[in-house]
């Protein structure tokens, strides 16, 4: 009996040590969870417009959201610069997250959002069964997806780029990846893009951006393909990384809405036009992606300009 107690004590100590080490890698994006977010911290949102009462049509999705007093957004909690939960404040910050708050303010009058952690395998289902009102999650507009959901926007256009460990030679374009092992984020458009441009590349995927960077540094692959903005941010944080190509794709991000809700879609498109005209969109960009990308905010893509939007 004594030995059991002793063993239990040893095990408990071991456990405490191990869980302390493991504590840093939480938040798998495939696990659904909800994070409350009150918003209102950033000054840009003060200038964000509020819809005229006449625009909130009776019986519409907007009216339902307004009555609820909260916009339910499907998004990430672990995407740096785009939609990342700040562990200190619990606030979700970034380009996608702030746009969500601005949309909430437009409908409700206050930037009140609830972010439901969605993933690329759950987004379509969450929209179609009404769990979330909108999805802001680097949701690339494609004709296949447009059969399942409606897209407002595009609200941003991004592209994939390649990063390597400093000192790697012979990789400067996607074609150079043929025959090599390439790291990509699971559930990112990088996977089909690499398959198309470098069919002989072996792709290995990890859940989040930090894991991918770690894997690149540990030589699990020779290159890491990811959204350029993210790579620039990674390279800025980590001098071992080097971005070696210009963006080689065009990924138009759309706001996912329930399929066939044309009323809500045109309402959201009107909102996008307004915030792009009065500088709120640009301000949100400056606060997030603009902190790592040089220069002024880019010109937003034209709404409805890509197939599927």
């Amino acid at each position, binding site marked *: 009996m004594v030995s059991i107690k002793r063993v239990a004590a040893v095990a408990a100590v071991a456990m405490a040590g191990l869980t302390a080490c493991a504590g840093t890698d939480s938040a798998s994006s495939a696990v659904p969870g909800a994070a409350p977010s009150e918003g209102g911290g950033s000054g840009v949102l003060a200038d964000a417009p509020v819809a005229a009462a006449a625009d909130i049509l009776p019986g519409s999705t907007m009216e339902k959201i307004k009555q609820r007093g909260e916009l339910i957004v499907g998004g990430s909690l672990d995407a740096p610069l785009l939609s990342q939960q700040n562990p200190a404040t619990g606030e979700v910050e970034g380009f996608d997250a702030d746009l969500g708050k601005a949309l909430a303010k437009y409908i409700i009058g206050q930037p009140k959002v609830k972010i439901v952690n969605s993933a690329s395998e759950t987004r379509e289902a969450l929209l179609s069964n009404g769990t979330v009102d909108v999805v802001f999650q680097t949701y690339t507009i494609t004709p296949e997806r447009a059969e399942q959901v409606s897209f407002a926007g595009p609200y941003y256009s991004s592209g994939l780029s390649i990063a390597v460990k400093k000192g790697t030679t012979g990789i400067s374009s996607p074609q150079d990846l043929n025959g090599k092992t390439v790291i990509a984020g699971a559930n990112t*458009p990088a996977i089909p893009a690499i398959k198309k441009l470098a069919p002989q590349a072996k792709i290995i995927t990890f859940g989040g951006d930090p894991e991918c960077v770690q894997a690149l540094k540990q030589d699990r692959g020779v290159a890491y393909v990811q959204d350029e903005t993210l790579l620039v941010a990674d390279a800025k944080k980590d001098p071992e990384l080097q971005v070696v190509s210009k963006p080689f794709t065009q990924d138009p991000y759309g706001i996912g809405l329930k399929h066939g809700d044309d009323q809500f879609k045109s309402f959201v498109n009107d909102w996008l036009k307004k915030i792009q005209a009065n500088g709120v969109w640009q301000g949100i960009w400056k606060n997030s992606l603009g902190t790592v990308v040089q220069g002024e905010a880019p010109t937003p893509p034209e709404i409805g300009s890509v197939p599927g939007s």
Partner: protein
Amino acid sequence: MSALLDHLPEFWQGLVVTLQMTAASFVGAAAVGLVIVAMRVGPVPVLRTVATVYVETLQNLPLLVLLVLAVFGLPEIGLKAGLTTTAIVVIALYEGAYIAEALRSGVNAISSGQGEAARALGLTFGQSLRHVVLPQALRTVVQPIGNIFIALTMNTSLAAAVGVVELTAAANRVNLLEAQPIPIFVGAGLAYAAVAACAGFVTGRLERRLAVAR
């Protein structure tokens, strides 16, 4: 449905990796389990303690934590193997703890008179374990070990989180293209169910064939 049928090669590839991982890690887990149970029921106090700590540690940590630690932590101290190999080893060590516990319950089911009789005949500890205790113990735990096999099959899907393209990761990739999660993941689920059903069928047959009339 076409989302599923157009991508059968990818699914097949993923299923093959899942089956390879299942087979390799089950063999490893069985070996680990046998060693651990021998230590745990053996007469040497130090080995008993080591085996108990092993079982309690591995059973009480989530497999995903172990996988992430092994894949990203071990290279930091200079230990690096392929992703699939690492995942197989970790799953084998983890499930080995469960197999050891199932085997131990089997050993405990053998009446102590059996062990005493073996000793009275002059068999050493190893001999009595090999010839008397384990053959009887194994028969009583066919079903629990079958269950561990099924759990192990399902647990291989966690390797998707550390870069192994097995069935779950393959389904994820197909979904990325097709945006049809329901048929795609139902398809992957059916493949897992088929593997589990085969395992259940085999253990059922084995159990009946090996049953000892008491």
